[in-house]
């Protein structure tokens, strides 16, 4: 067999001009229209099918939420900020409301706390199902993806009954929640859905998580270690897949989480497979939490703090100061920093999306040396939500 060097030498002798080998790379624009990138764009410098360099470019949304929030009254910002992350819109609502609660010095009623916890867990389950759908599609296991989409639909229906909206709920407000739960029928439906999904997890295992293809495609791909992850500020399931037992629900407890019994799944490998399996175990734990909450039942009492609130929207004022609240979302540590100057509008709101940590620098470093076919898999295994970055 003739080696490459000999071929090149022969070509040169025949008078052909060849570019030097090290310059034999090309640029590939990956996204924002590519399915795997989710309105996120990468510029990949490729050598054959290997990535040599990756540049992440998140600016494709241009929404300027943080600036817009400074022009709107305190309450109406809920309807704005929840649009930050589509699969999990309850989280920005909750953190903003918790920060405003802290500034107002409000103790949220027990019933509202129960409802908020339930809504947050439902949001986590539906976001994990959304992620399962994405992962299954990228691996070519379409059956599991379609199941996940269908099961998520059940949660959307429950959200619709609870809040009146399927995707953007506008439900958690400062001081509690916007309205009470529809009644016992809704609780029964939620219980049925949780039991049904818990049953169906075995099918997901059979088809997706214990699949030979999944292991072959994910094992050893996009590995990051503990030190790297901590330095880069990675949070959530991505950090837990590297062996750090970090969960906001456990060590900065909020709402009813201190009373609930659940485990935090941790794996050590730090590759795409570990990240996928952590999410699989999380899904199980979330369903377990929902079961416990349903067993506990909603405590009686008011569902929001009694105050002028909605009646006096433009005049509603918050004392001067600043507060930071964060929760554990399906993507990681979601935080809101709210500054008030005593006026009827926020002085400054900054939402800390988890994706800003693992969406820019981490991706740029993890993709170096990866094959082109693995790029979508790594992107999806990190569970990016580009609007987090470009808020």
């Amino acid at each position, binding site marked *: 067999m003739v080696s490459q060097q000999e071929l090149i030498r022969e070509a040169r002798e025949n008078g052909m001009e060849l570019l030097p080998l090290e310059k034999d790379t090309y640029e590939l624009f990956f996204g924002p229209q590519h399915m795997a990138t989710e309105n996120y764009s990468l510029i990949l410098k490729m050598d054959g099918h290997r990535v040599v360099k990756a540049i992440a*470019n*998140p*600016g494709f949304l*241009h929404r*300027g939420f*943080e*600036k817009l929030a400074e*022009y709107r009254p305190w309450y109406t910002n809920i309807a704005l900020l929840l649009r930050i992350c589509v699969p999990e819109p309850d989280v920005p609502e909750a953190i903003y409301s918790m920060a405003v609660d802290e500034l107002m010095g409000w103790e949220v009623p027990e019933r509202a706390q129960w409802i908020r916890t339930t809504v947050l867990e439902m949001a986590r389950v539906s976001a994990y199902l959304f992620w399962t759908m994405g992962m299954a599609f990228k691996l070519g296991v379409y059956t599991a993806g379609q199941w996940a989409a269908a099961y998520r639909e059940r949660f959307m229906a429950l959200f619709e009954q609870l809040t009146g909206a399927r995707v953007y709920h506008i439900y958690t407000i400062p001081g509690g929640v916007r309205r009470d739960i529809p009644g016992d029928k809704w609780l029964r439906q939620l219980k049925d859905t949780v039991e049904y999904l818990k049953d169906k997890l075995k099918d997901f295992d059979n088809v997706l998580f214990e699949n030979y293809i999944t292991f072959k495609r994910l094992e050893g791909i996009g590995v990051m270690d503990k030190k790297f992850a*901590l*330095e*880069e*500020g990675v*949070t959530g399931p991505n950090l837990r897949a590297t062996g*750090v037992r*970090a969960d906001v629900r456990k*060590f*900065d407890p909020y709402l009813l989480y201190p009373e609930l019994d659940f485990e935090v799944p941790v794996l050590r490998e730090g590759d795409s497979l570990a990240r996928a399996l952590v999410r699989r175990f999380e899904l199980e734990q979330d369903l377990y939490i929902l079961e416990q909450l349903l067993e506990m039942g909603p405590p009686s009492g008011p569902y929001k703090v009694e105050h002028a609130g909605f009646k006096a929207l433009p005049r509603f004022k918050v004392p001067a100061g*600043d507060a*930071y609240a*964060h929760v554990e979302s399906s993507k990681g*540590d979601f*935080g809101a*920093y709210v*500054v008030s100057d005593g006026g009827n509008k926020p*002085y*400054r709101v*900054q939402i*800390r999306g988890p994706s*800003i*940590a693992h969406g*820019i*620098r981490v991706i740029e470093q993890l993709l170096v040396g990866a094959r082109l076919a693995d790029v979508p898999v790594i992107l999806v295994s990190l569970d990016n939500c580009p609007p987090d970055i*470009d808020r």
Partner: protein
Amino acid sequence: MNLEKEQVIVDTILQKAPYAEGKVRRQRRIEFKIPADRIRDFLTLLKENNFESMMQITAVDWPKDGEIELVYQMWSYTYAVHAFVKTRIPRDVDKAKVPSVRDIYPVAETYERDAHEFYKVTFEGNDKLEMPWILEDEDREAGVSHRKDFDMLSYVKRKYKLLDRFEEDKENYVI
């Protein structure tokens, strides 16, 4: 409420950093105020004291004081404590400078790019500040978008040519 743990952390750090002011805000929230030129020393100290992760850098514009407040928000997995590290720098674009901390916390690079683009705070030592980030060139030339003195209404009208369009076919508009 038991605030012993937080008090011990604040005392330990203040002992090593006499230039700082610190206090306990509530359970699991502590706050420090430091001069802008000591930010590198202070964050190095925090990193040595088990504050492993940086959550974000927030810039808050205070035009009345002529200052921009930078809030470095640090999280410790060891103690489960969130620390606000606040520092103030002048608001003038030429003087709004602070040393970069990206070699201490690599993730700071992203947040510094963010603060530079929206608040024109220069982080000395971060060479990625001038790289394209979220805004496009024409938006960047229009002014510092997130500062309080930015006239958003006239910018929106100018950008989307709302006024021109209105003036052109005024007769077709029914108001």
